[in-house]
């Protein structure tokens, strides 16, 4: 156990220099001088002696308050609200705070600034950063690259001995790590996605409470005010008693589990431990998002294939029973056929292998494969090529399907256009490499995945949605890669839309009806979260398509769904 908090070992026992202040003296350099006098040297170089003092003057902390870290980071300019947040954490909250900015305002940067400032001031040497495992590497890079903080990702037991460690909270709270960490003292503890600590019966919560720490930052994007007891628990990790004892808190602030009372008083109490910057009214200039729907008529052979697949899906679903998982999965075929024949072929081939020899299913698939063979060109791919050639700028083409990705890259290459692939299955190093190739050498990135560990494509201003996911969060992730903090230029989003298909309905719902491409990033998450308490949006849509009796019915169904989403969105705005 470390007991000497920041005091050099050679310092002697303290004496009072003021009724409140103990003074310690570390004179080890003088003791060395005495030894050298006795031995007649050796003596150090005069210039180095003066340089040492110059270094001391350069690194002196001349002021209790001014941020020292910024002059150490000439290559990095935080946004004004981030600097302001760091200052408030340091001076008003004394290093214990909840950072609750809305998504995309740079909570990590704020936390990094605070950590850097304490390190520069010599007030923090050891820091533990606990995050969901998917964010470990991202944090390590951010701290190293942006802040020059030599953080490492915890992988082996001895990594815990490093001064600044980033680890998955699920690993850290398990033995043997747990006891090891609870024996230590951390100058700073940072917990990302801290809303996972809200339940006080969980291991995460108990672990976070028990860790010994001097300064502590909890990061969360989820507005914790929505649940009063969760809010109380989170603050208890940080500063037990900040909102009074449990009964006092209930009496003063809780009207109902989800409804606070004495809002103003509560807000005032929260302001002492929590900072929430909002996009509205923030100092960020928002570039525009220019969304274009590109309507495309299928060629006769493509239309024949689409109709064939639709008929296959309908009849197979009727036989399996509508609303069964199997039937809903079949709708995927319709989506795939809107993307590329390669995508639908792969799925049909897998179905074929599973079906019995000589069955009706076999027959139907054989028929569809004939239709696939008849398709000679991909209308969408041709349009995409035309768009790319016209924009003369970096562009990301997103597709849901691996087969389409491969096809597109082949297609582009045949037309003399170099492109770089990106997919979820690639390891970190490969992803980085692809990203660099895209940045430096290629005009086009063809990606099947947008989520995962923060890929950052601010240098790119064009997105082509070759096909659309039915999970709006995935659409938001796609846009978020490009349209994010630091993007200074307008972003163009093209949605390819094959007319008379399932795709047309989806584009209409997402773009025209709920206008999700221009929604505030982060807003959707809350809405979808509420909506999907009963059933995922993907399932709802699939059900609509199977159950609808005719086009008009389908249209009305989708409109109703859109109205529900719009209603939730309005409700959310009113709550705020």
């Amino acid at each position, binding site marked *: 156990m470390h007991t000497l908090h920041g005091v050099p070992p050679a310092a002697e026992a303290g004496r009072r220099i*003021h009724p409140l202040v103990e003074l310690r003296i570390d004179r080890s350099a003088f003791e060395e001088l005495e030894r050298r006098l006795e031995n007649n040297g050796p003596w150090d170089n005069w210039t180095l002696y003066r340089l*040492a003092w110059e270094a001391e003057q350069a690194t002196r902390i001349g002021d209790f308050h001014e941020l020292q870290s910024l002059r150490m980071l000439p290559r990095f300019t935080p946004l004004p609200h981030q600097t302001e947040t760091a200052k408030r954490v340091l001076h008003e909250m004394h290093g214990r705070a909840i950072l609750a900015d809305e998504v995309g305002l740079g909570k990590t940067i704020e936390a990094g600034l605070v950590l850097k400032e304490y390190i520069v001031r010599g*007030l923090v040497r050891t820091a533990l950063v606990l995050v969901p495992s998917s964010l470990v590497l991202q944090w390590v890079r951010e701290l190293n690259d942006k802040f020059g903080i030599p953080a490492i990702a915890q992988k082996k037991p001895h990594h815990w001995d490093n001064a600044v460690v980033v680890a998955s909270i699920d690993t850290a709270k398990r033995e043997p790590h747990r006891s090891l960490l609870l024996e230590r003292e951390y100058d700073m503890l940072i917990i990302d996605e801290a809303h996972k600590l809200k339940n006080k019966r969980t291991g995460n919560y108990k672990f976070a409470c028990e860790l010994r720490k001097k300064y502590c930052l909890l990061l969360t994007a989820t507005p914790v005010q929505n649940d009063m007891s969760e809010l109380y628990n989170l603050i208890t990790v940080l500063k037990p008693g900040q909102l009074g004892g449990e009964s006092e808190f209930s009496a003063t602030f809780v009207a109902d589990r989800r409804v606070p009372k004495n809002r103003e008083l509560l807000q005032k109490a929260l302001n002492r431990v929590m900072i929430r910057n909002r996009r509205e009214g923030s100092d960020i200039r928002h570039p525009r998002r220019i969304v274009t729907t590109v309507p495309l008529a299928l060629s006769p052979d493509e239309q024949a294939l689409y109709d064939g697949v639709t008929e296959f899906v309908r009849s197979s679903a009727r036989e399996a029973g509508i609303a069964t998982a199997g039937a809903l999965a079949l709708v995927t075929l319709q989506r795939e056929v809107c993307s590329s024949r390669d995508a639908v072929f792969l799925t049909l081939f897998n179905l074929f292998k599973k079906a019995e020899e000589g069955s009706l299913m076999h027959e139907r698939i054989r028929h569809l494969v004939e239709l696939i063979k008849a398709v000679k060109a991909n209308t969408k791919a041709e349009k995409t090529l035309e768009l790319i050639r016209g924009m003369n700028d970096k562009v990301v083409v997103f597709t849901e399907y691996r087969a389409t990705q491969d096809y597109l890259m082949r297609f582009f290459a045949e037309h003399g256009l170099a492109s770089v692939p990106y997919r979820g299955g690639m390891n970190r190093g490969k992803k980085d490499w692809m990203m660099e190739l895209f940045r430096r050498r290629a005009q086009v990135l063809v990606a099947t995945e947008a989520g995962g560990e923060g890929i950052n494509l601010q240098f790119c201003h064009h997105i082509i949605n070759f096909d659309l996911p039915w999970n709006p969060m995935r659409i938001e992730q796609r846009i978020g890669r490009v349209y994010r903090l630091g993007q200074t230029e307008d972003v163009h989003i093209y949605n390819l839309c094959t007319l008379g298909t399932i795709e047309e309905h989806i584009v209409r719902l997402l773009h025209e009806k709920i206008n999700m491409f221009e929604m505030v990033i982060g807003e959707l998450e809350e809405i979808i979260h509420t909506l999907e308490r009963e059933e995922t949006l993907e399932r709802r849509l699939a059900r609509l398509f199977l159950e609808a009796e005719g086009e008009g019915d389908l249209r009305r169904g989708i409109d109703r769904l859109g109205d529900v989403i719009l209603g939730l969105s309005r409700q959310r705005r009113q709550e705020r």
Partner: protein
Amino acid sequence: MNGGEVARFVVSFLEQTGCHIIERSPSHVVVKLSPEADRALTNRPFYWSFVDRTGAEPETMTFAWYFEPPGNAAQAGAAEAAPEALAAAGGTGVATAAFPAASPASAPAAAGPLPSAYSLPGVRVLSEHLHFGSARLHQLFEYVRQRGRNVFLFAEPPRGGRAADPFSHAYTAWLGVNFKVSSECDMKREDLYSWGISLATGVIDEKFGERLQASKMTTRLSPEIRLLKSTLTPRKAMARLEAHLERKLRRGDFTWAVEAEARRQEERERVASYYRPLIERADSEEQKRALRERLARREAEIDWQYRPRMTVSVTNCGIFHFPGID
């Protein structure tokens, strides 16, 4: 430290450690390190132990260090730095024929585009930005703190005026000490004092640092110089300097400490108000004990965070001989 100050600092360091400067401008330096500097900076203990054991001729590393502020650096052909940037991003083992693999190079912290990839025929040159706050400069700071701790020096005798002043060649010894004082609570401030005390008379000079700046010092005692006897041992002199410093510090402003103490008390009351009712309502003695222990821990954290304290440390110190008696 601005770019110019960093450049001066670095060049001084390189000259003093016997490094070979190949090329130099106000905004950059290309240098082949001396063995001493290489050992200190390149973190190659295995290589150096190999050299030491086999007596092989050491091959030291060559660096191109750029000092400009980042605003200027960005213009000069950032795109040309592609190979470094690719390697720095850790792209390993995924080279394709179309895109040749870049050689691995160490990534400077907080890397930005380098002005240009410096190349010398047949020599691997590592390019880095060296700005205030960069890890490399920090490393130089650490080195000089370790290697510039104690000196023993003489002021050069004044030229010409040989006979004028009979005392000009009578030298007395001074103990010069550089103190760093840090005042710490949940925040921190530092003050520096460069003081000297005459070992002959016990006089304390609070402007000793300036005197040193203005003087030419040498390691050799020239034959015509006569050293006067000291009456104070360095230890006694040090005790006097410390006492002097302490008196000065006592007269200082302690508002920061009073405020920190108020925060500490407030925080302690707050956690107590949280745990007290819990302890009272606890069902068993065992629970009570556990809660009390938790409270004690929280209190210890609060003390750790807020307790006002001061530390005096000696950055470096030396014996300096000056003409005359003060």
